[in-house]
């Protein structure tokens, strides 16, 4: 028989007696202390008081023992929550990335369309300019025609008035010469 077995035989009566002795004790322990005691993280300055209170109260002792047994499940729950939240965050990031990628694609299409529109405007502008240039010689022709007409008018004016006035001038000059020569 080992030590634990021997003592478990004695302990039963002593334990029972001690628990009856302390059954009415309900020390004012707070949850922080009890959780710390269960986790084995009691501060040194609180250890004696808290451990002593737990040793003197069967109810608190049971709560501490229960919490110690629950520790693995609490760790599993914390891990499960963290994993679930991490997966959810990962999905959110994926959705956000997809949205950004879609935005980028849309941006590229927009840029392409803008470039095409700019080209179109340039072509239309160029065409319009050319069109104006091809139409302008006619206008010049009209103006030249007017000028020719004017020149014709001038010419006609010259032909009409020139020969008639010139001889008269020369005639006058000759007439005057004749006067001076003769005199």
């Amino acid at each position, binding site marked *: 028989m080992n030590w634990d077995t021997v003592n478990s035989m004695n302990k039963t009566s002593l334990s029972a007696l001690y*628990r009856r002795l302390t059954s009415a004790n309900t020390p004012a322990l707070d949850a922080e202390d*009890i959780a710390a005691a269960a986790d*084995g993280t009691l501060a040194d300055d609180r250890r004696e008081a808290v451990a002593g209170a737990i040793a003197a109260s069967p109810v608190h002792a049971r709560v501490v023992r229960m919490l*110690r047994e629950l520790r693995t499940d609490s760790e599993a729950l914390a891990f499960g*929550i963290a994993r679930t939240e991490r997966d959810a965050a990962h999905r959110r990031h994926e959705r956000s990335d997809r949205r950004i990628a879609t935005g980028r694609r849309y941006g590229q299409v927009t840029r392409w369309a803008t470039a095409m529109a700019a080209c179109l405007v340039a072509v239309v502008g160029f065409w319009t300019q050319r069109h104006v240039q091809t139409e302008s010689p006619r206008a010049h022709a009209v103006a030249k025609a007017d000028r020719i007409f004017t020149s014709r008018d001038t010419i006609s004016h010259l032909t009409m008035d020139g020969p008639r006035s010139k001889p008269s001038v020369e005639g006058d000059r000759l007439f005057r010469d004749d006067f001076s020569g003769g005199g």
Partner: protein
Amino acid sequence: MANPADLVQARLEALFRTYGAKVQALLLTYGLDKHGIDPADVEQEVRIRLWRALERDRSGAFHASYIQRVVASTVIDALRRAEVRAAEPLPDEDEEPGSVGEAPVGPDRRAGDVEQMQGLARCLAEIPERRRLPITLHLQGFALQEIADLAGIPSAEAARKLVSRGLEELKVRLRELGYGEFDE
């Protein structure tokens, strides 16, 4: 296709349900239902408190020690409420977790118990503090490693030695004072 938020909610609910079932089972195993608390109520309260904490800070890390504190505070609150409204005496503390209760105690034995309890209290008071704490923790049902952790003893082996010597001393003293044999 299900909404991703609903899937997360469903997964968390499943986790809390599993954990809550474990809390309820342990409350029953350790006989805490005999102290005027309803394990189902405590389990529900634990789940509500954990949900609230999670909704307060979704990005915050949810540590096991925090979960343990939530359970501890819920159980302690329930015990205090039960204590306030208790009209009946506390149940007999003899039972080990999950064990069957002892036979009813007669008046003669009860008188003898009172005498023995007084003797035990006297003998415990005579034991030096360093050995008294491990012994009383042992008598409350803690294992050697648990005693080492609680009392700040370096190892389970060191706790075993302290408990062994202390118990021997206690038994000898009880025998000397005429309270009978406890080691047989």
